[in-house]
């Protein structure tokens, strides 16, 4: 006998399990329509695969999982899709959501399912895909996709099958364990196989189900599966609670059971997974407890998913107006439905329709006297009376410090509260507010990050600019220093601010004035030569780029060349003996350019307009040839600048044509 840990807190509500166990498992006729919500599970809603008017068979996939955490939906009988529209969902808010509506044809034809007798020799991923394709989700209440839970990243040493069913009234799992213990054991073996055969495989059942325990123990003979029973106490069947009861370990706050090597599945889910793998049968029906004093017939039924609850109630002697409320699930954590026009979904383990005597309307809440009975009942070790206080005051810091997020909403606190305070409702609201706060905080953090990044970038750019500015300043200061050294002391204006253009002009004018005529001319010539070099550089650049300014630049070059000529002449006249054209030895790049420009200018000056144009045409032709060659080369090399080269060719061609036209006009 393995050790049992005692659940702290907890309550003992009246079990009310006998009324639904008096009858064998029942079935009800097909309803006139079946409604399949696309979102029956935790995670992303499924995507419809059918269209209005399509014929479907029982077991046909009508909506597929979208994303990792999602589950497929299958038609539970044959018929035709009559609508895909928003219908009211079994949700506490009474909200609507997209549903596929199927009108049964009454034939109840099922698809051929692919059997797999040797499933235990199949690899896990194949089996997981089968489970995923069958749309299996947790059938105990939360509806988490089973294939995701059975595929943890962590290594698992304990597999727990949850047959606790601690909620009062519900006996669906009890009946399943009583009537199909072998399938439960086979399913358990399958899940153990999927999880790499954990060291410990245990089925936990509360001791108020002696028949189920006996049946399971008998079926488990010869296997390594333990069937453990433990004292009945609500909420022993909560995932975290059952893990503690059976292993003595606590799931760390905010983590999944897999983080401590435990995976837990409900017995119903286990059998559904087994059927999906062994027989290829998708999840299209389940056992649901139909119970409550407003009904004349209380029992468990095998019901097709999508069956409207109103249809189920009709077949159990439901009398309108007698029920004080309608609950999907048990009396502790079940969802109060606002309408019976919602379907049975994968997680609907109970339909509870009590009368007013059984579940009277809630008492008005009295003042909290902080009696602490809630804290005694809390299985999570919280202080509900304090959290209630802080939830009312919307003191989110204190709520967090009191671990409101570890509340499992089991309702034990509200159950024992002598002042009838709906504590769970306050905690749900408080948790919602905290969630919203977290979302808002993340949003604002992100935008703050964005803002800070932008500020940083701007600051960086500023710094770069500033560095450039400093460099320029340093350069100009160096230049100024050099100038100041070369400038006589009696010219303070120039030395004061070398960047001042006026001062510069004055300085150069003064310099000129103080020069001898021939020196002046020489200096003049020198500056003209410099200008010519520059102008030529610009011109060649413009030519290379095919810019429109080529003509203007050409004129500029010509003029400068003329000026140089004039200046040279003057100088020659003044000092003919002194002037010698620059010898080839001393010719530098500038001199070479000057010489070429001079030659060009000379020849230009000598040329008639026609000749000029002809020369121009000739040069343009040559440039065109060059440009075309470059383009070819670029094409051959697949250069990325092909477009630019092509552009240059076109432009040169245009210019050539223009020049030719001008020539002809002459």
């Amino acid at each position, binding site marked *: 006998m393995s050790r049992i840990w005692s659940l702290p807190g907890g309550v003992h509500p*009246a079990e009310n399990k006998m009324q639904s166990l008096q009858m064998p498992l029942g079935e009800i006729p097909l309803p006139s329509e079946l409604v399949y919500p696309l979102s029956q599970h935790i995670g992303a809603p499924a995507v419809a695969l059918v269209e209005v008017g399509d014929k479907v068979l029982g077991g046909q996939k009508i909506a597929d999982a979208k994303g990792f955490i999602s589950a497929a939906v299958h038609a539970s009988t044959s018929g035709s899709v009559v609508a895909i529209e928003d219908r009211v969902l079994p949700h*506490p*808010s*009474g909200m609507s959501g997209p549903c596929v509506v199927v009108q049964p044809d009454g034939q109840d034809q099922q698809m051929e399912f692919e059997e797999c007798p040797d499933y235990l020799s199949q690899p896990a991923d194949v089996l997981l895909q089968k489970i995923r394709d069958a749309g299996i989700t947790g059938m105990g209440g939360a509806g988490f996709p089973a294939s995701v839970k059975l595929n943890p990243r962590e290594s698992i040493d304990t597999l727990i099958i949850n047959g606790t069913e601690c909620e*009062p009234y519900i006996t669906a799992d009890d009946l399943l364990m009583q009537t199909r213990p072998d399938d439960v054991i086979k399913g358990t073996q399958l899940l153990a196989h999927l999880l790499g055969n954990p060291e410990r495989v245990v089925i936990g059942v509360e001791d108020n189900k002696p028949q189920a325990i006996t049946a399971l123990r008998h079926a488990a003979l010869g296997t390594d599966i333990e069937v453990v029973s433990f004292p009945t106490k609500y909420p022993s069947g909560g995932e*975290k609670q059952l893990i503690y009861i059976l292993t003595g370990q*606590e799931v*760390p*706050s*905010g983590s999944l059971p897999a983080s401590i090597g435990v995976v837990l599945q409900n017995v119903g889910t286990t059998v559904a997974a087994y059927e999906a793998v062994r027989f290829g049968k998708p999840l299209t029906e389940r056992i649901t407890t139909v119970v409550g004093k407003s009904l004349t017939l209380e029992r468990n039924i095998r019901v097709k998913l999508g069956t409207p609850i109103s249809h189920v109630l009709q077949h159990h002697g439901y009398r309108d*107006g007698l*029920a004080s*409320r309608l*609950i999907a*699930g048990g*009396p*502790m*954590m*079940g*969802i*109060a*439905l*606002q*309408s019976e026009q919602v379907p049975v979904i994968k997680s609907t383990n109970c339909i*509870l329709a009590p009368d007013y005597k059984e579940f009277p*309307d*809630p008492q*008005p809440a*009295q*003042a*909290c*006297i*902080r*009696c*602490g*009975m809630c*804290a005694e009942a809390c*299985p*999570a*070790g*919280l*202080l509900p009376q304090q959290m209630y206080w802080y939830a009312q005051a919307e003191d989110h*810091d*204190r709520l*967090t*410090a*009191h*671990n409101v997020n*570890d509340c499992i*909403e*089991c*309702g*034990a606190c509200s*159950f*024992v*509260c*002598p*002042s009838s305070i709906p504590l*769970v409702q306050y905690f*749900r609201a408080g948790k919602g507010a905290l969630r919203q706060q977290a979302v808002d905080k993340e949003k604002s953090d992100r935008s703050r990050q964005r803002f800070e990044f932008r500020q940083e970038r701007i600051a960086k750019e500023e710094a770069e600019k500033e560095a450039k500015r400093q460099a320029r300043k340093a350069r100009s200061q160096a230049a100024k220093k050099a100038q100041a050294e070369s400038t006589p002391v009696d010219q303070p204006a120039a030395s004061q601010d070398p960047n001042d253009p006026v001062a510069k002009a004055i300085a150069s004018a003064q310099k000129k004035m103080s020069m001898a005529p021939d020196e002046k001319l020489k200096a003049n010539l020198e500056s003209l030569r410099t200008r010519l070099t520059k102008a030529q550089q610009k011109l060649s650049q413009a030519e290379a780029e095919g810019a429109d300014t080529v003509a203007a630049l050409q004129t500029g070059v010509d003029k400068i060349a003329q000026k140089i000529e004039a200046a040279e002449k003057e100088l020659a006249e003044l000092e003919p003996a002194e002037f010698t054209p620059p010898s080839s030895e001393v010719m530098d790049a500038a001199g070479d350019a000057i010489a070429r420009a001079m030659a060009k200018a000379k020849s230009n000056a000598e040329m008639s307009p026609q000749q000029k144009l002809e020369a121009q045409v000739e040069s343009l032709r040559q440039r065109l040839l060059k440009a075309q060659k470059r383009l070819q080369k670029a094409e051959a090399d697949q250069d990325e600048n092909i477009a630019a080269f092509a552009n240059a060719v076109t432009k040169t061609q245009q210019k050539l044509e223009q020049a030719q036209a001008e020539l002809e006009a002459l």
Partner: protein
Amino acid sequence: MAFKQLSSPHAHGSNQTQRVMLAVALACLPGIVALTCFFGVGSILNIVLACVTALLCEALMLKLRGRPLGFYLSDGSALVTGVLLGIALPPYCAWWIVVVGSASAIVLAKHLYGGLGYNPFNPAMVAYVILLISFPVQMTQWAVPEALLSNDKNLPDLWTAVTHIWIAPGSNGYFDGYSGATPLDVLKQSDAMSWDALKEAEPILAQGRWAGLGWEWVNLGFLLGGLYLLYKKVFTWHAPVSMLASIVILSSVFYFSEENSGSPVFHLFSGATMLGAFFIATDPVSSAVSTRGRIVYGAGIGALVYIIRTWGNYPDAVAFAVLLMNIAAPFIDYYTLPRTYGHRKSRSATEKAVADQ
């Protein structure tokens, strides 16, 4: 058909505030019986008058505050305050003492703070302290057990008692011939004598078995009532047990080291020890909330009771001790949060919201 939008859980236990309160009032019975046996009808008259005043004041305040009368009056909390105050007041004290006390408890200590659940101090103890400070002479005259009455007098009958209370409260509130020193008074006033000598010399101690004639039975009565409430799970054992334990520890230390200190048994069964432990320290509204907090809270009350009894100016100290610990209750709460499932350590309530671990 549309159903109401209701939040789970749908099932509810049979617990009701009214039932809790009535259980508390009922549990006072053994103690009240003992009080009546030894001191006469005085306590019952006090209780009746205090309850009537408390209910009237409650109704008045509810009306002034615009609250539904029936709903709040029926919770029984005013009744419990009245009962506890009536028990605490000296038998045969003047009617106006009871009325002033009861009105202070409900109006000042309860409703001015927002009514049931919002009062930081125990209303009955606030009233007791107000009276003790305002009318010290009247408040320190406790009745004498019948066996100790001189000239073979009997306890005053109902008529005499009512006349005394309503018509002629006597000079300075003395009920001549019927009031005398309590065991705690005796201990307080005779510092020089050793405990054993005192026990021989003083008739009220000499005629009692452990802690003074009458008083020991009164305390046993409240202990019995307290055990009943524990059995009914109206409160947990933490505050009363830690209060009594701290009294026992402190009185033992001094009993075995100093001759003139009262024995642990004397301190346990004298004065208002058991009433305080099971009916006052367990007042949920004004005490600490967690089990750890209640242990600290109870221990604090026990220590203060012993300290004030031994070195303070008042012979009994439950009211002051409780009020002082009421002040400390929120502070205790901040540092005694229980460890939550899935957390390695308990947190402090003052912890700022940081990234959840």
